[in-house]
């Protein structure tokens, strides 16, 4: 019969609509809770599974990468970076600048005097973190860094880029454990 195709299609959308309300029922009495969010983002999801950002946020997998940061070795109290410059060379848009530190006599030292990343140019590819031989540059999870001005506030210098290694150990437990194991082996 003419029009049955449309009616069958409408049935699919109707089921979606009903599903959306059934799933929403699970959000009673607490609107934002992690269990329902995890279920709604899984292959069992039904209905609409929009996330009400910023009231709730999608869980980030450990490997999620945004922009780079530098690791501070809290035991030694200094950056892990040795200013070898591999990150600056491998960076596709070339947004990393490094100046190597020097002793007062002018002898180069294995640490950076300046380390600048222009985040307005960075494309977040993660090659710097992947190829750093000293595990000193890592990709951050924090994606809420929008600003009103492009040229100065997105230009991150050494101070703005540095995070303690405890921050890394907390947010990236699997990678941290792996890296610690390889370091101990050496």
């Amino acid at each position, binding site marked *: 019969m003419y029009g049955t195709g449309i009616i069958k*299609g409408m*049935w699919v959308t109707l089921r979606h609509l009903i599903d959306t309300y059934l799933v929403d029922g699970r959000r009673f009495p607490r609107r934002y809770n992690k269990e329902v969010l995890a279920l709604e983002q899984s292959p*069992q999801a039904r209905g609409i599974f929009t996330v009400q950002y910023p009231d709730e946020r999608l869980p980030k*997998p450990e490997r*999620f990468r945004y922009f780079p940061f530098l690791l501070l070795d809290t035991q030694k109290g200094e950056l892990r970076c040795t200013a070898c410059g591999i990150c600056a060379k*491998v*960076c596709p848009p070339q947004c990393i600048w490094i*100046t*190597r530190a020097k002793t007062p006599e002018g002898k180069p030292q294995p640490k950076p005097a300046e380390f600048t990343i222009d985040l307005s140019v960075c494309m977040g*590819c993660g090659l710097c973190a992947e190829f750093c031989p000293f595990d000193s540059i890592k990709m951050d999870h924090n994606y809420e860094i929008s600003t009103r001005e492009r040229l100065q506030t997105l230009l991150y210098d050494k101070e703005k880029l540095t995070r303690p290694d405890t921050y890394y150990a907390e947010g990236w437990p699997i990678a941290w454990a792996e890296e610690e194991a390889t370091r101990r082996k050496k």
Partner: protein
Amino acid sequence: MSIATPNPAATTTVTRDIGRLQEAVPGAIVAAEPSGLVIAPDRLVEVGSFLRDDPALLYDYLSMVTSVDYPDRFELVYYLYSMVRHAGPIVLKVQADKADPVVPSLVPVWAGADLQEREVYDMMGVRFSGHPNLKRLLMWDGFAGFPLRKDYREPFFEEPAKPFASRWPEGKYVRAEERAPYKDNVQYPAGFDPQSYTPPPDVPIVPSSEMEGLKTQPLVVNMGPQHPSTHGVFRMRAVLDGERVLALEPIIGYMHRNHEKIGERTPYMGIIPYTDRLDYITSMTNNLAYVLTVEKLLGIKPPERAEYIRVIMSELTRLVNHFVLIGFLFNDLGTFFTPALYGLEERELILDLFEMASGSRMMCNYMRFGGVAQDLPDGFIERARELTQDRLPKILDQFEVYLNSNEIFQMRSIGVGVLPPAAAINYSITGPMLRASGVKYDIRRAEPYSIYDRFDFDIPVGTNGDVYDRYVVRLAEMRQSGRILEQALAQIPAGEIQAGKKAWSVRPPKGEAYARIEGPKGELGFYVVSDGSATPYRYHIRPPSLVNLTPLGEMCQGYKVADTVVIFGSIDITLGEVDR
């Protein structure tokens, strides 16, 4: 230097075919180099027609046209395959004079050469005699210079190759705008005045026979570049008789960023994240095609586990692409956003998997030369299996119930935008669009790359080659992707994911390579010429989106304006890849 094709049987077939060509067209081959046959320019059309028409050869498919700017010559490169015999490639090369490069056009033999030759003309300045519509394709008409020539300096040019010395050692931060000695480097031709500039005349407007005797005239309508139906910045210049399309021409280049030039100054490894941004819906397959090309040059093979991971990621990407395409095709039809959001929901779940493995949902940057960036995380396989084996079939059933038998959709799509099989091959169409026209050609079968020869899957084909078939073929292809994923997820072995040591800088030996894959949109190929340095000498992409656009004008002729939107939507393009 040439790179050995993986299949020795295919190589012998090609050698035999070349022998036959030498007998039949004597004197046309100037030199038979291992990387290709150098043809005398004035015999090119003759050689092309012979290769296409000879019943024993039937090289009916012109896959790629590009050019290389060598210090002493321009070299045009043509890759020919046989869709009927699954043979190939025969590589033709034509050398052109450096001062005044002119080469005969192959458009009379293969209509698929049209946009590709225009691109070569635009970017490299090689003119094609006999081309019916030789104008700039990507750059604007008043632009001076040819951006892919080696002597061209792009805006903010610093050095010919990265890494730029200003960064390391002892680099001090300078803003990009102040950094470059060449500044923005915008050039105009001598005597050019933007105010008085008039663009060259377009194709003449011919009134249709029905308009005779009426006080009327054809109307030129520009759809785009900002139009919701064009999925990006794309313009269709349509000549209309009332609602009916008399002629239509795609106009592109609004998002051109000279990706190939960027590639030629970036080290091999650094190009991988740039390929993500070509067709940003299918970044995993873009990575794969590029990595396969460089692996051909390097002569390495990834370990088993990495091969399986690549197949899993490619097939998931195909699912993502087809979900998005089907969704937005229905947007074009007027089912505003309900099917699109149903498709996007599934896409989100697959992107979750990409994010788990690679760290990014769209800009994955996951493949590496001889492997993949990281091993699959815990729980990936289980989740992928749950998604593709338990959920996907139900969702596809639901899509079928929802859309296939919808009468409005059928009326709008059956018999609309028909592309007959012979024309599709001649236009170099690939991918689901070709198979919808009834040509059973899939590179995963015709020239298996990676480990696709191990999997059991069917190649769905259509019968009419209309918009409806293109939709149905894609839906059927998703089921086959599900089958491949089922096998790959079950068979994936444990082990290494990287052949040898992962290096941040690779220097492939001198030579050239072309690798192609069956991307979700069609044949995605990368052509890389290496001169032994850390950056490619020539880096070219054969984009399925651009080549599939070639017959748009012909397919739209005679249909209503509303149909052009649907026909265009069914081609499945991403402007990031069309314009590069």
